[in-house]
């Protein structure tokens, strides 16, 4: 390893970057757009479930029920409809997610201590959302039931009784259960993959396409020096992206890192090394910018989104796919980020993930050197 040779490659690569400012735009526009898009738009929180009411009963009691439903933060009554047909129409159009139908004689049934069913219709076209809405309405009706039970017991002359079981729930790490608190760290992982790997996936292919690879081959520079020299400018650009993402998370969304900043930078650097060596490997293996451009989203962006435990829980996937997720670098990095952002974990907990990322970067670098050596470097 000769620092002067590495420096020459780095300097040259830096000139390419500033001369071809389209890739620089890409490097800085992607994190901005993704953070804004995901931070504001991709909320997995379910609040204010749009609800319509069909009240055939029309008593004070049924109106009280609806009032209490509307007062809860989870539901928002958007319309009172005349009949179930209209409610079905609203669901068909997607104007509402949930319809609550209170049948005639509902109050009278309660007063007569008979069963008093309510009809709840939920739009299941978004299963996740429907599930959560169903959970909310079940919990709501459970509370109502308890209240009626108490009233009933009181009427029977029994004293006020308390149910013996009560879960005292305390949420750790993400107390407000804000999905944004883990979406932003997750998006940092995606940004690094996109910028780090997609930009670098072009740089060796470009040498092949411009015929300068032949020059490089004829020069006294080793494959290792070549790769390190090429990686350095992209390393710092992507690291700048990480800082932008962290800063935006803090300023726009108030997401504050709980653990050490430098631990986060170290983790990002390791993950960056994986992204860049992966990009360079794609580049030296495909030798074509066009092909590299088509392959790199497939092996970088998509796995980081889908198989990393970021949006979709790995535990719910079939075993084969779960096995595949073990080779997705983003999985380990997102695990670290969750630990750093939400759990305030230190290196004693996180080191296995650090080690995996380090090994991945090392393997990719060695593969890179092998591929380039086979091409006569």
């Amino acid at each position, binding site marked *: 390893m000769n620092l*002067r040779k590495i*420096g*020459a490659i780095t*300097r040259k690569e830096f*000139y390419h970057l500033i*001369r071809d400012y389209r890739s620089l735009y890409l490097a800085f526009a992607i994190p901005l757009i993704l953070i804004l898009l995901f931070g504001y738009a991709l909320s997995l929180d379910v609040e204010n479930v749009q609800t319509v009411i069909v009240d055939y009963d029309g008593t004070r009691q049924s109106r009280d029920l609806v009032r209490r439903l509307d007062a809860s933060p989870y539901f928002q009554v958007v319309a009172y409809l005349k009949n179930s047909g209209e409610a079905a129409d609203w669901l068909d159009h997607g104007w509402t997610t949930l319809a609550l139908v209170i049948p005639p004689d509902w109050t009278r049934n309660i007063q007569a201590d008979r069963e008093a069913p309510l009809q709840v219709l939920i739009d299941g076209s978004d299963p996740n959302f429907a599930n959560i809405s169903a959970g909310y309405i079940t919990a709501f009706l459970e509370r109502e039931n308890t209240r009626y039970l108490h009233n009933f017991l009181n009427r029977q002359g029994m004293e006020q009784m308390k149910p013996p079981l009560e879960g005292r729930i305390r949420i750790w790490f993400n107390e407000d259960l804000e999905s944004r608190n883990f979406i932003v760290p997750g998006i940092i992982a995606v940004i690094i993959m996109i910028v780090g790997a997609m930009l670098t996936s072009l740089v060796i292919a470009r040498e092949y396409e411009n015929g300068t690879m032949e020059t490089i081959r004829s020069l006294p520079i080793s494959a290792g020096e070549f790769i390190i020299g090429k990686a350095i400018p992209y390393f710092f650009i992507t690291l700048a992206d990480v800082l932008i993402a962290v800063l935006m998370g803090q300023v726009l969304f108030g997401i504050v890192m709980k653990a050490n900043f430098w631990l986060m930078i170290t983790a990002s650097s390791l993950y960056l090394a994986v992204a860049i060596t992966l990009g360079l490997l794609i580049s030296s293996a495909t030798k074509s910018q066009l092909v590299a451009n088509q392959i790199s989203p497939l092996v970088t962006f998509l796995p980081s989104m889908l198989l990393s435990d970021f949006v979709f829980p790995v535990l719910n996937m079939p075993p084969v796919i779960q096995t595949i997720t073990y080779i997705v670098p983003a999985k380990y990095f997102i695990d670290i980020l969750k630990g750093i952002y939400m759990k305030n974990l230190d290196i004693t907990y996180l080191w296995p993930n650090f080690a995996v990322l380090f090994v991945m970067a090392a393997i990719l670098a060695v593969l890179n050197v092998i591929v380039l050596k086979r091409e006569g470097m």
Partner: protein
Amino acid sequence: MQSTNNDAIQVQDLEKRFGKFVAVNKVTFSVRKGEIFGFLGSNGSGKSTTIRMLCGILTPTSGQGTVAGYDIFRQPEEIKQSIGYMSQKFSLYEDLSPFENIRFYLGIYNVSPTLWAERISWVLDMTQLGDVRDRLTRELPQGWRQRLALGCALLHKPDILFLDEPTSGVDPLTRQHFWDFIRQLASQGITIFVTTHYMDEARHCERIVMINQGSIVAAGSPDEIISQACPDTQNADLNDAFITLMKN
């Protein structure tokens, strides 16, 4: 394996196979120090493969050889450090200025920074590119780019200069200047190994080897080759010799 004799390049039974295809079939030749040596052959004759083996880019299948005193099997990096190589495509970085290209080569050739200022002005002077040193290389005419590529290949003062079809696509006047400059370099003791398609250019060479289908078909001075290849033709030139030899 530091050689002690007067040969800059020496190869014996050098062979390169790609699978079953024999690209270079056991060629043997040597190039003397300070000589202008022409290596001629039609496209696909094994010419490029040979030059790539000599430059340490491609590892030969069998045979033996030394370039600038270094073994072509075991010391490709040392060979790369002591030769200059300029290929037909003038593969410079076109989005860099001549000055930036020169600095790139100085770094890669590991030239000590104390020598940089001197070498930069030497090359800019020699290539007459001082006035355009900060323009982008892609904006320069082809002949100028060719001079720059040549200058870059000389920055580390190599013992041997390999020129792979250096003048294709260049006008006759520029070619004339180019060859004047090459002869000047040779007089300073630099060995020149050149491939070309232009037979009038091959005339500038002191000795020539012609290769066809991976094997050497003629070797010697231009005049010797003409008389060997076309003994019966009056006023035969290298062109005639080339065509005769490549037909077989």
